């Protein structure tokens, strides 16, 4: 059996890659995609804990299902915002959305 820590390390790495993408790329659609990567990282950690934990078998998996549904909702709204933005400005640069600057 592969130790739990391996899975956690994988989750941490995937999370960091996602975070890097969110911060580094300018295209709003890619930012949404990277958010999905981060959610996947969390899902891996949850499923791993669920598999290795001595208490409450399957609880983590239930969580993953809920995360999946919320992620679907988030993608739908995020992409809708992207399309609306494109229609409004004809550009997808996240930095364009700075109307709230002080």
């Amino acid at each position, binding site marked *: *059996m*592969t130790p739990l*820590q*391996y*899975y*956690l*390390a*994988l*989750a*941490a*790495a*995937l*999370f960091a890659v996602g*975070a*890097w*993408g969110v*911060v*580094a*790329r*300018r295209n709003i*659609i*890619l930012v*949404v*995609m*990277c958010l*999905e990567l981060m959610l*996947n990282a969390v899902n*891996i950690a949850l*499923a*791993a*804990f*669920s*598999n*290795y934990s*001595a208490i409450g*078998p*399957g*609880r983590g*998996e*239930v969580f*993953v*299902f809920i995360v*999946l549904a919320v*992620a*679907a*909702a988030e*993608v*739908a*709204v995020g*992409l*809708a*915002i*992207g*399309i*609306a933005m*494109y229609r409004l400005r*004809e*550009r*997808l*640069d996240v930095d364009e959305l700075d109307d709230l600057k002080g």
Partner: protein
Amino acid sequence: MNGFSTPLFYIVAAIVIIPAVLMVSFRNLIYSAVAMIVSFTGVAIVFITLNAELLAAAQLLIYVGAISILILFAIMLTKQRSGEIQLFFHRQAWAALPAAVILAAVLGVVLGRGRYNYAPRPQNPATAQLSRLLFNQYALPFELVSLVLLVAIAGAILLAKREKRR
């Protein structure tokens, strides 16, 4: 899938991580999307190694199936009319890369150092048992999530709808 060997784990991990890094790096969005699909498929395999077959199926259906297609459509709908953006990367990207690496390291250390209460054998239950859990004990959160989805869909339609010309 008891006794899943460690070398095999490295291969699966590579299927997850390498496409992810590529996805962030590609200039062409279509390439990025394809890399993302590969990475998501890798996550599905990870789920299989964790005895979570139903999860793996759901991962394939929702992420690889639905979300990827949605993203591809979004990419095609928003083809840059005014030419490509000159800068693919944000100004702060040079600082973000080391920060991300350090984040990965620190997260790994923090997670790895935890003292976990190990189960003697894999705990993820069979599908029937999981469904019982989902529809008895967690029925309320499940229903709530369905409501969230409904609201999100309504909101997405409203946002993406073409505004009427006045």
